[in-house]
Structure formats: structure tokens, C-alpha cells
């Protein structure tokens, strides 16, 4: 029943499993229980006039699923899509209901157990919008892993870019 992301985060078990993936120089993590499927890259159908980070849509066993390019979403340099490019299909829950979407990442690295106590809060970078989708930071094997809150990253606004993007575009 409870769809409040803050509450679910707070009531989670002391450790949970996180799927980590690489984007450029950085490693990100998402809750493994939100991962629906991992699949290879295949050509997408473009959506007219979509925000730049939405690459298009794919047919995922009969339903139409939007594919988001996290590099564009995080304003990282572009990479080529190749046969080893990976799409992670994730599920978000929002007031609007359940939505599935895929994110394009450079590669999936591993699944790690994350101790809730080891998660550091995100440093204040001045703009709330820039860090709102980050649940925290955790150090794994001396690498910093950025834990994403995918409900906030995508939530009900796949179509509308987040504030930071809008600002970046306006600038």
C-alpha cells in the first residue's frame, strides 16, 4: 500500500542488494528488486519531440517501454551504442501507477550487499534538483557507488526533463 518513497527507504532491511553499473568513469547502483530484466542493446523507435535523454521505445514482450540514456540524463559525454551496450529494465512506482522503462548503461558490473549504515548522505551541492534522485553514496572496494533513487529519477516524469535539464537547456 505504501508508495511513499521516503517511507519505503526507511523501513528497508539493514542490508539490501544493489545492482551496480558503469557509466563513463562512475559507478551507480540501483535496488536489485527493481530490476526487471537485463538485455542487450537493440534499435529503438524514436519518439518525436521527446526530451533528449529519451532515446525512444522498445517492444518488451508486447508492451511499449521507453528507453532512457543515463549519460544524457546526467550530462556525461556520449558513447557509441554497441553490441555490448546494456539496457537495464527497471520498474518505478509513482502516484500514476507502475511504469517500466529501460536505461542504457555502459555495462553491468556486479551485485553487492549494501549495509544501510554505510550509506553516506549526498553532499549538499547547492541545487536540490541535481541530487534529488540520489539516495546516497557508498564506498565499495574503494570505489564510490552512487545509489540512485529511481522513483525520483524517473517517477512520473519520463517526458518532462528534471529541473536541472530544463535549466541546462535554457542556458
Amino acid at each position, binding site marked *: 500500500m505504501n508508495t511513499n518513497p521516503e517511507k519505503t527507504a526507511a523501513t528497508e532491511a539493514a542490508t539490501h542488494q544493489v545492482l551496480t553499473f558503469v557509466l563513463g568513469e562512475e559507478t551507480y547502483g540501483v535496488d536489485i528488486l527493481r530490476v526487471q530484466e537485463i538485455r542487450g542493446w537493440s534499435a529503438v523507435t524514436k519518439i518525436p519531440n521527446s526530451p533528449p535523454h529519451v532515446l525512444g521505445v522498445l517492444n518488451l514482450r508486447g508492451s511499449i517501454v521507453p528507453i532512457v540514456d543515463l549519460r544524457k540524463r546526467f550530462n556525461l559525454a556520449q558513447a557509441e*551504442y*554497441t*553490441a555490448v551496450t*546494456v539496457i537495464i529494465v527497471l520498474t518505478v512506482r509513482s502516484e500514476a501507477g507502475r511504469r517500466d522503462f529501460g536505461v542504457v548503461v555502459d555495462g553491468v558490473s556486479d*551485485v553487492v550487499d549494501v549495509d544501510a549504515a554505510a550509506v553516506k548522505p549526498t553532499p549538499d551541492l547547492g541545487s536540490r534538483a541535481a541530487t534529488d534522485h540520489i539516495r546516497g553514496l557508498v564506498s565499495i572496494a574503494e570505489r564510490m557507488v552512487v545509489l540512485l533513487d529511481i522513483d525520483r529519477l524517473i517517477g512520473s516524469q519520463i517526458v518532462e526533463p528534471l529541473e536541472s535539464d530544463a535549466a541546462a537547456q535554457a542556458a
Partner: protein
Amino acid sequence: MSAPRDRSSAATIGPTAVIKPDSVLRLPAQCTIRDAAQLLGRLLLHIEQSSPVYIDAAQVERVDTAALQLLVAFLSDRKSEQRAVVWLDVSDAMLRAARGLGLAAALALAPG
């Protein structure tokens, strides 16, 4: 956009190199009661694995109740330990059998 445009690559390509090979459980073409004991052994090897188990069922051509029953038990055990099982690719034969036995939901193969 730099996306490759080749429509022929539209099908899912199998497990990717970035997933560690030892965490992928590749089901053989024949998954039947004849080899059920062997399948059980392989599943047991993965049951305690803390990282997700990726099941690649793309090659499955024939699967029967005995094999699916083992997978039901495997998924249910993993689920009760909060450990993930991720389907990488599933053949039509596998889907047909799971649906025909009313097991698609129990196997997390139900659409949507």
C-alpha cells in the same frame, strides 16, 4: 542520433559479457524429467549465491512439469531469502509450457 539502425538486430541479444559467466544458469535444450536430478544439482549450486542468478532459457526446446517444478521451488527459495533471479532470455517453448501449466506467475514469467 548515433544509435545503430539495423532492424535485424531488433531481437534480444543474449547475456552480455559484463555479467559474470558463473552467475548465469544456462538451461539446456532438453529440460525434462530424465535430467531432472542433474538440473536439481545445478540449481542447488546456485541457491546460496548472494548475487542474482541469471537464468538463460533461450535454448530450451522441451521442458516438462518436473523441470518447471524445480524452477518454481528455486525461485520461491530465492525469493524468500530476498535474493534475485533475473531471466535473461526465455524461449517460446519455455513460455508455452509455463503458461500451459498455469505456472507463469509462479515463475515470474507473466507479462507486464
